[in-house]
């Protein structure tokens, strides 16, 4: 419970002179819900991309369960048990909700080109299991009624939930949530909070980038604050709320 699941050390990434992420070191304890907050342009999504493998850091390391995974490709990172959602929902628009979630089972299944082309019997069992597990998750999240619908036809809030379900289908050890509450109304945000707590209780560690302060303060065990690519504060939510640097960064100099 107290071991560190994910750690970044001195991560550094710039784009043509702009330091998107500068010397960021963060530890995510196993079983925790850790939030990453900061004003726009602080480097939060870049940090996610560096962890998930979409971007390569120019300096620094990323460690998962103590082993370096720096600059690993996204699919390799996913295979380790790190799943993510995106700031703008990236569902497979022309696949059904069920198929979208079934795609989440990709890392847990094996059938390849040859087995697929020959339609070998062992792949039938695997596909049945994939479907069953996907349906189970959809049930769990209350999306069962939509399973046959084309993903792009769903209302926005539901689409986000499907992306969530898809990430859960990978049976992750670590879940990276990039602004999961963006665009959700107050009720949907509350449901989201309950959902995140529920999956944490099932053993999934969560790293959440968020702007919605009430969500962050309510569910996080720890909060790390980034500004202009650098970490300026880290600690429990209550302490962060009172932290002078944080207040200054969000509200300006007159309020510290």
């Amino acid at each position, binding site marked *: 419970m107290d071991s560190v699941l994910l750690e970044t050390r001195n991560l550094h990434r710039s784009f043509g002179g702009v330091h998107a992420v500068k010397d960021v070191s963060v530890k995510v304890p196993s079983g925790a819900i850790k939030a990453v907050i900061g004003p726009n342009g602080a480097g939060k999504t870049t940090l996610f991309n560096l962890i998930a493998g979409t971007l390569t850091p120019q300096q620094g390391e990323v460690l998962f369960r103590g082993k370096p995974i720096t600059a690993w490709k996204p*699919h390799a990172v996913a295979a380790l048990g790190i799943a993510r959602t995106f700031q703008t929902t*990236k569902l497979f628009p022309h696949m059904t909700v069920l198929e979208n979630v079934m795609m989440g089972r*990709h890392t847990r299944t094996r059938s390849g080109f040859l087995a*697929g082309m*020959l339609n070998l019997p062992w792949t039938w069992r695997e596909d049945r299991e994939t479907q069953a597990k996907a349906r189970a998750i959809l049930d769990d999240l209350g999306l069962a009624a939509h399973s046959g619908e*084309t993903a792009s036809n769903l209302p926005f809030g539901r689409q986000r939930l499907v992306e969530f379900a898809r990430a859960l289908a990978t049976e992750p050890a670590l879940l990276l949530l990039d602004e999961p509450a963006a665009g959700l109304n107050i009720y949907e945000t509350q449901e989201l909070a309950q959902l995140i707590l529920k999956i944490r209780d099932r053993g999934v560690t969560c790293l959440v980038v968020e702007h919605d302060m009430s969500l962050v303060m309510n569910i996080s065990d720890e909060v790390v604050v980034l500004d202009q690519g650098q970490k300026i504060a880290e600690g429990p939510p209550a302490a962060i709320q009172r932290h002078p640097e944080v207040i200054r960064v969000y509200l300006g100099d007159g309020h510290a």
Partner: protein
Amino acid sequence: MMRLRMYYPVLVSALLIVALHLVLAAAHATYYMTQVTMSAYYALVVIGLCLLMGYAGQASLGHAGFFAIGGYTSAVLTTCNLSAFRDAPAIAALRSIGLVVQWQDLYGKEVLSFSPWLAFGAALLLAGLIALVIGLPVIRLKGHYLAMATLGFGLIVYRIVLGAQLFGRADGVSNVPAFRLVDGLQVNGRALFRVQNYYIAWVVVLAAMVLAINLVHSRVGRALRSIHQSEEAAHSLGVDTYRYKLATFVLSALFAAVGGVLLTHYNGSIGPSEATVMKSVRYVAIVAVGGMANLWGALVMGVLLNFLSLRGVFGTYDDAVFGAILILIMLFAPNGLLRVPNLRAVSSVGRASALAFQRVVRGRTTSTRRSHG
């Protein structure tokens, strides 16, 4: 997945094929079967290309090159006369296991050459290897860069077969022997074997369709569609997008090569016209008009359009017709002409192609690389 429903069209096709035979026989017009057989072999290329373009979302303007690689390899290997080496131990050994055979060519001359089976294997191996070598650097490219690279590949193949003495330059390779499959069955263009070959071709094509359908409905098929619809999301879910695209590229090359080998034996020859850019463009046009991710559409259109072209229906406007098809389809019916309403997954992915191409390509090309001056 074990969905028997997906095989119904195969059954229907089989029945239609037999029905066509009976109709032609009754009308004393079995000579049409020759062109249908040829069209079927061309359709093999289209099926593979459909997997690549419609499902994996990768363009290829050089697929005629793989057809040619298949055809020319088997042509050269089955017509090269090894008589001078007949006493060499390697040759004798191969002969004893039937991989080197003696036969009589059109002029009655005794020829010793590699058996069609060996040539077939070699052709597939070569096509696959070349696809791998070309694909490794090229599959990384996007949009028009990928299109151009494949075009360049196709052109190189054309120049090689046109320019090299080994491949007969402008005359190509002729005198290609029949391909004896099993006792009594051979791929041969002579009238005597017409009906037999009609069925051989269709068995091969339907087998290819079954493989393609299986693939599309499998975990890999899902992964391919996911790459096409959102490569980033697919990547984040553990799909090794590069490897999948490369594998599909090689697979589609193999399909094309098989078509090339069999058609070469059927025609008894192959020429550089099989490797032209126009041929590659035709294949693309057919996949497009059939509906990018519509395997059955590709097959139907492949056979139909090739048949019409072979029969000379388009006259001197043959190329123009395919060019016009490309324009019209892309402008007015980017999802192709054949929508199959019941197979929801098929038509919705067809829609996906037009939009997903947009997503994949537009998202990458709006970066400011356009300077002017």
